[in-house]
Structures are given as structure tokens and as C-alpha cells.
């Protein structure tokens, strides 16, 4: 391993088997009360054939075994807490610890969702204010906190659009989606029974009003946009575009994945957007948790308010309550009221930041992204060279001339101690490298990252072998994804384990 400016030198890396290979029969990790009811208890009256006969495959381990096992696993993870995570479109910013402290207060964690409203007034007050704050931040009129994640928010938003159009007599058939959109957009359309019409982005990277005008007709229910779009560019014609759609009776949905660029600086409500989802785990610092839980509130304009999922949190004469009496609602998308634990964190964050703080979030996020853009634009191909918002998209065009591809650059970054950017997305940029630094990273971190990146690009020319073999300092090396697809093992069984060990032996002999 050569000397390099990043923090990625190898440390202590432990081996750790799957947990089913730890422990011993009879060892235990639980602590349960002795039954006070024993002695007088009758036999179980459930039919014998409905009772479990065989023990499930769970490990028999001590508490310490569990602690050591999962602590070791945790050390194989890259995380925001350990390093720079410029994963574009995911907004991997610092997740404040105070959020966690607040969210773990028993006054929240020990609330049952079916308690009386009287006994959860604090929780309802929090949700009511968060609804209002999100509406204000986005320039919308109302919000629902129910959707469990961005994708469910999209589904909810489209359901509302459909319900609105149905109330006008015709649900229409199609939804327009730019070719740069997240895959969830078309998938959500399909879930709502809409046909997808893909719009081509213009050569400048933004949506051309003419393209929308030509695609727009009376069968189009909605346009789904992402603003800033997935190239990190502000959709400069957004007002004209939303007007074109509205003039023909359609509505405009905004994917809120990229709100970190706009918060306090511009509001989608002013742009003619009718419905927006937030990703609280992106913009509002709730932790990503290795893939969730997220939270995907939706904010809407007045015309869509009657269609919000039921229930909505309302307030009357000093009393907060669930308003379930909503005849035009699209229904319920989640049991109970949303990912409340995430809502607490987002609310805590907004209360700590305030209006000025949130505005600075967008400013610094955009500053950091443009800094990376300028510093790397001579080394990497930059297909859209204008000022970007919160993220910048490069491509591997230059490096591919010497046979080095985006994925290989990404893997090499790991050796330097960085999480790779989002790769191969958006689809309209071949070999895309999408970098979103976020506002919580310092100039020093950016400079180190840029220096590492430049060194890797130099290696492409002079030591391509290093790139092709990367990563080399991780707990494991490049994985055989073909095998995972063709001979998958989704669960641990003694049989699959035997096969697997045989395969490893065969593989090692072939090396």
C-alpha cells in the first residue's frame, strides 16, 4: 500500500463467523422474570397440531457473545461517523447526537399508538408543528407525516393527484418523467396505474419547456420532476414548465430527494409544484440506518389537501387530535401514523437550526459541491459544466480512454478511506460519478478527498493495476456478484454451508 493523504490505512480487522456458528446449546443471553403464575397454570389449550414442534434456527449465545459479534460486524461498515460519504442524491450529512438523545426519551419510545389522544398530547403537538414547519419550508399549504419513506411518499402523492383528477371526472392515463429521474418515480407511477412517458433532458442538462409542451396533452395526469435534478442542476424553466402542465389540467409532482439544496433559499410551492415528498433521512438528518428506516412526509397545495392520507393531525381549542373524518382521503398507506421516531429527530433538528441555520445548510451544501466541481473539473470529464447546486456529476470519459471505468475508480477510493460517490446514476451520463459532499464537511475534508481523487486519477495512467485490484485494504475484496445471482444463498443452513465450503475449497485450489 502506497502512502496517501487519506485516513484509509488498514487497522485491526477481526474475523467473525455468522452468529449461528457461535455459542453452544444451552447458553443463554436473555433475562426474563420467573413466572409468578406457575403452579396454578392450566395446560395450553391451543391444539397440539398448531404448536411449534421444532426449534427455530436462532443462535444460543451469551449476551457478551452478541455484543462482540455485532460490534465486530459494525467495524466492517463504513459510516458517516467514520468518514466522508459523498454518496450523491443520498445527502449523507452528519446526524446530530442530540436527535438520538431526544428520540430515546421514554416519553416517546414507550407510547402505544392506540393510547387515548389525551395521553399523547406532547407527541401530537410535535407532529402538528412538524407538519406546519414542512409546509412552510416548502411553501405548501398542508402536509401529512404518514409515509414511511420517500418511495411511499411518491406513491401517496400520485394517489392524491389521481384522486383529485378523478374528482374532476377523469383520472387521465399518463405521467411524464424526465430520463434523469430516480427509478422510484416510474415504479410509483406503475403502482398508481399510470403509464410512464419518458422526457429527454436537453443538452444543457435541464428540462426544456418545449419538450414538456410537446408531450403534454389531456391524457397526462402529472409531470414528476426532481428539482434540483439528479445532475445537481436547478430546473431553470420550472415556472414555465409547471404552467404548461397546469394549463392543460395536469398537476406537478416534485421528488424532494434534493431539498437540501433549496431549504431556506427557495420553495417548491412558489414554483408551481402541487405536491412534494420529503426524505427526512436526507434533508433533516435522521439517520440512514444501513438502509432505513426513512420517513417520507408529503406536502401539498390547498387543492390536494382533502386527499391527504387519513388520519391528519389537527388542532382545536388547545387540543391536538387525529382527524379521521376525511371522506376524500386516499386512505391509509401505513399502520398507525408514520415513522414517529424519525419525526422526533427531524423536529429536533429544525428546532435547533431555526430559519437562519437552515438557510445556511443549503448555502454551505451548494458551496461545498461547487468547490469539488471546480477542483476536479480538469481531471474528470464534467458533462454539464455550469454552476451546480448541492451535488455535481462527473463521468469516467477521460479515464475510460485508458481502460479505467467508474466502478474501478470508486473501488480505489475505498482504499484511500472514502466512501465512493453514487456511480452510474443518473443514467443519462455514461459512467457517472455523482458527488454530494453535504454542508457538514469541512474544507479540510474536501481538500483531502480532492487530493486523494487526483492521486487515483494519476494512478489510472501510471499504475492501473492498483486500480483494477482495488479495494485491497478492506475486510473482504471484490465479491463475486455473478455467483450471488446464479447460486444464491439467502439464508444459512447446514446444507448450504457445506456446499459453500466445498465451493471455497475448489476456488482456492484454482487460484
Amino acid at each position, binding site marked *: 500500500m502506497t502512502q496517501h493523504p487519506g485516513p484509509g490505512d488498514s487497522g485491526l480487522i477481526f474475523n467473525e463467523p455468522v*452468529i449461528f456458528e457461535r455459542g453452544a446449546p444451552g447458553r443463554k443471553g*436473555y433475562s*426474563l422474570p420467573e413466572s409468578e403464575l406457575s403452579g396454578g397454570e*392450566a395446560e*395450553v389449550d391451543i391444539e397440539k397440531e*398448531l404448536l*411449534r*414442534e421444532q*426449534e*427455530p434456527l436462532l443462535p*444460543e*449465545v451469551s449476551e457478551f457473545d452478541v455484543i462482540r459479534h455485532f460490534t465486530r460486524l459494525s467495524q466492517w*461498515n463504513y*459510516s458517516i461517523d467514520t468518514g466522508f460519504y459523498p454518496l450523491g442524491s443520498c445527502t449523507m450529512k452528519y446526524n446530530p447526537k442530540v436527535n*438520538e438523545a431526544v428520540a430515546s426519551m421514554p*416519553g*416517546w*419510545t414507550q*407510547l*402505544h*399508538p392506540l*393510547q*387515548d389522544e389525551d395521553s399523547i*398530547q406532547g407527541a401530537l403537538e410535535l407532529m402538528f408543528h412538524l407538519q406546519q414547519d414542512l409546509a412552510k419550508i416548502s411553501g405548501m399549504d398542508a402536509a401529512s407525516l404518514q409515509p414511511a*419513506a*420517500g418511495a411511499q411518499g411518491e*406513491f401517496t402523492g400520485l394517489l392524491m393527484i389521481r384522486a383529485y383528477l378523478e374528482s374532476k371526472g377523469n383520472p387521465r392515463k399518463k405521467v411524464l418523467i424526465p430520463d434523469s429521474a*430516480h*427509478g422510484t418515480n416510474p*415504479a410509483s407511477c406503475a*403502482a398508481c396505474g399510470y403509464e410512464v412517458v419518458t422526457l429527454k433532458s436537453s443538452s444543457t442538462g435541464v428540462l426544456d419547456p418545449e419538450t414538456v409542451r410537446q408531450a403534454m396533452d389531456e391524457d397526462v395526469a402529472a409531470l414528476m420532476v426532481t428539482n434540483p435534478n439528479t445532475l445537481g442542476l436547478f430546473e431553470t424553466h420550472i*415556472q414555465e414548465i409547471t404552467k404548461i402542465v397546469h394549463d392543460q389540467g395536469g398537476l406537478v409532482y416534485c421528488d424532494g430527494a434534493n431539498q437540501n439544496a433549496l431549504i431556506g433559499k*427557495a420553495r417548491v410551492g*412558489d414554483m408551481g409544484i402541487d405536491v412534494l415528498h420529503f426524505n427526512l*433521512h436526507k434533508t433533516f438528518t435522521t439517520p440512514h440506518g*444501513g*438502509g*432505513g*428506516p426513512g420517513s417520507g412526509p408529503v406536502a401539498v397545495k390547498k387543492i390536494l389537501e382533502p386527499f391527504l392520507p387519513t388520519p391528519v393531525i389537527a388542532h382545536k381549542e388547545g387540543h391536538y387530535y387525529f382527524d379521521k373524518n376525511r371522506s376524500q382521503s386516499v*386512505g391509509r*398507506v*401505513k399502520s398507525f*401514523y408514520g*415513522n*414517529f421516531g*424519525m419525526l*422526533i429527530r427531524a423536529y429536533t433538528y429544525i*428546532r435547533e437550526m431555526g430559519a437562519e*441555520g437552515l*438557510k445556511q*445548510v443549503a448555502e454551505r451544501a451548494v*458551496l*461545498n459541491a461547487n468547490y469539488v466541481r471546480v477542483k476536479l473539473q480538469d481531471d474528470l470529464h464534467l458533462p454539464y459544466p455550469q*454552476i451546480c447546486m448541492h451535488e455535481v456529476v462527473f463521468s469516467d470519459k477521460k479515464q475510460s480512454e485508458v481502460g479505467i471505468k467508474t466502478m474501478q475508480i470508486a473501488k480505489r477510493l*475505498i482504499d484511500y478511506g472514502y466512501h465512493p460517490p453514487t456511480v452510474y446514476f443518473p443514467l443519462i451520463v455514461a459512467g457517472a460519478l455523482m458527488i454530494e459532499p453535504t454542508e457538514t464537511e*469541512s474544507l479540510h475534508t474536501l481538500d483531502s478527498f480532492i487530493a486523494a481523487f487526483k492521486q487515483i486519477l494519476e494512478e489510472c495512467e501510471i499504475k492501473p493495476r492498483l486500480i483494477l485490484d482495488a479495494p485491497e485494504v478492506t475486510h473482504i475484496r471484490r465479491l463475486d456478484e455473478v455467483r450471488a445471482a446464479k447460486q*444464491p444463498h439467502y439464508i444459512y443452513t447446514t446444507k*448450504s454451508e457445506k456446499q459453500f465450503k466445498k465451493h*471455497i475449497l475448489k*476456488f482456492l485450489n484454482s487460484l
Partner: protein
Amino acid sequence: MRYLPHTPEEIQKMCQDIDVQNIDELFQVIPEALQLKQLLDLEPPLCEIDLLKHMRELNHKNKNLLQVDAFLGAGAYHHYIPVAVNSLVSRGEFLTAYTPYQPEISQGTLQAIFEFQTMVASLTGMELANASNYDGASALAEAALMALRVTKRKKILLAKSIHPQYRHVLKTYLLHQNVEIQEFDWSENGRVTPALIKEYLDDQVAAVCIQSPNFFGIVENLSQLESQVHQAGALLIGCFSEAVSLGMLKSMGDQGADIVVGEGQSFGNSLNLGGPYIGLFATREKFVRQMPGRLVSETIDSEGNRGYVLALATREQHIRREKATSNICTNQGLCALTTAVYLSLMGPKGLARLARQNYDSSHYLQRSLSALPGVELKFASPFFNEFVLQFEMPVKDILFKLKEKNIFGGVMIEQDFPQLKNCLLVCATEMNSKKQMDHYMQALSEILNSEGSL
């Protein structure tokens, strides 16, 4: 702002390097009319001391389950969470990682999910499980969608004894799929019988969905229905809301279900007023390509080491877009980890014992309460840890009076089931001591007596 590290000098330097005068110049790409000139109308910012004070004040406006005797279930259950669970799950390496797109630096999350998948598959009697759905309700809805894809049919049969919110969510999800949803009744003893579904089963039925224990806590017998459903060419979807029951009951996979889904909250996840919870989703390997959600598979690396990757991504929205099996991308990763840690601590014996304790407590409580005059056990069928009582007076009044005695006595169900007038769904878990349950009986007895004397 403590989360924003830039000094004024650094900002100046960065602007110079970018070749702009100041940050605002970067925002000139936004049309003038859309630039927000004033500050957002939000409450003023709080320092950490005031923030914690404010949040504690809000907190104290709630009454939490540690402050009362609660007997609430109905899809969310009060169970003990070992301290070790949160100690591990709150580690930053788990908490602040994202979806494991880069497997070489995400083996912690990936292996934990692989272990989670194994545990869920084993508990449900299935061949594989996915890396989680949002909650039990959306897992059921996704299972129904999957059955439509597998069978290419257009009808879903739902037991009315499935959690009403699950049915509601399923209907929302299927709203625009051009699908007919039919609901069938329970029999007098609260169970589904083959005769009840017979008239609905035709060659257009994609799936029959049954919950066990059902919404009334009653253990269903899926094996009795299985052959009938399969003969009709439909899939049998088994669903549960109380995961602890899996420690005691024969798995629904072993009873012939094709897809088993449910709520995993009971496995170490806090009640949290209803979320985040975790949808468990398991099925047979032959259906894997129609399965929604992320999946982890074991494989090897270039040096022959065991490792894990996300597999079969081609089913998913980022590749297959409008043809994807689901739009889900962010799932409940941290809750899956929580579940895996919890189940590791419990082990097979701990889980069995816990389940038995829930059974014992709830039966002790049921016998105590239904011995009171004016209280009737609604359904004469075996139940797991919750049961329905019927009163001779409105449940609302009883609950109100119990609340005055610091008891949350159960969940009223007649708003969802008008035919179950004056009925109360009562739950007892390992969190309810004998003393609490005796106190409940005494309080209820007093309330009913005083009503009687009016």
C-alpha cells in the same frame, strides 16, 4: 451553527477558488422571482440546553406506558427490550451507514441482514426472507401484489379478522391495480373455516389472506384451509401482527402458506407511537423473482473469503423502473438489525419461554376478568396473548373509568367492527405483573359494581 464547520475565511477562500464573489452568486442560477428573500417563518433556534428542556416539556405532556398499567395490543405490543439491543443498534457504524451499495465496506450491515433473513425464514417456516418492508400492513399489501404477479389473476380474498389497518393499507395499495378484493367472515368462535371461504374461491383468486393469531388474538388453523386454497390455484398468504407468537406456534410455512408476512415490532423495536416498525416478508425460493424489496446473498470474494452482497437487484426500481416488483428502496435496515440482535439474545429457548409467559399472563388475566359478572369472553377459541371481552355497557365508559385508576384497559374495536358492540380487545405480555393484572380485575370489578348500583 455547530453542524456547519466553515469559518468566514474558508468561505471566502472557497468562493475565490470557485470564482464567485459570495455564496449568493451560486444561487443566481435560480430565477430571481423564485429566490426566497426573507427568512422562513420558523421558531427561533435553540441551544442544546434549551432544546433538551423544550423536548422534555413536550415529553411530559404524554403519559407513557412506564407510568400506567397498560393492556394494549392490537398490532403494537409492549415487550421488554434488553439493554444490549439499543447499545449495539445505536453504534454510529450501523446508525449512520446507508444501504450497502458498496459491499466491501458494508459487510457489517450485509451480514447482519443475512442473519436476519435466516432467522425470519426459520421462524416463518419459509425458504427465504427479504431484508424487510416498512411494517406489517405494507408487507401484507406487497404480498398481495406479489401473488397477483405470480398467479396472473385478479382477485384477493381477505379475512375480516385481519387487522383493520392492514386491510385498509392493502386496499390503498391495490386501488389502481384493477383488482377485486373480497372479504370473508369469521365463524362464531372467531376462526376462519373452510366453509367460509368456499363460496369465494374461483379460478380468478390470486391469494387468500389469513392472520394468525388474528386481530382478536385467536390462533387460526391454516392447514385446514391449505389444500382448498391450493386446489383453486391460489396462494395462501399468512400474516401476523404479534411476532412473539412465532416462538410458540407452528410456523405458517409448515401449515402450507406460500407467503408469510407480518409485523416484527415485538422483536426488540420500541412502540414509538406506531413507528418505525418492520415488515417481515418470507416466501418460497421458487417465487423469489417476484419478491419485493432488498435481498442479501452469500458469495465469495476474489480471495475465497465469505462475503455478502445485495442480490437480484434486477427486480428493483433502480434497474427495472416501472416494471419493478415494488417501488421500495429505503427499507427498515436498522429495525432489521434490532430484530437480529434481539433474536440472538433470546435464542430459541428464550423466545419459547417468552411466548409461553405471554400466553400464561394473558390467560390468567382473561380468566380473572371474564369471571366478573357482566363480562363475557367473546370467542371460545384458543388465543395467544390478547382476547376480546364483551360487556353489557359501552366500553368507552369503562375505559374512561379505568383510566382514572391509571389503567389503559384495552382497545375499543367497535368502530372497525360494528357487529362487535361493547367489545374490548385486551392484551397482556411479560410486562404485566400479576399485581398489575389483579389490580385491573379489582378496578374493573369496582367499576362494574358501581354501574350496577346506579
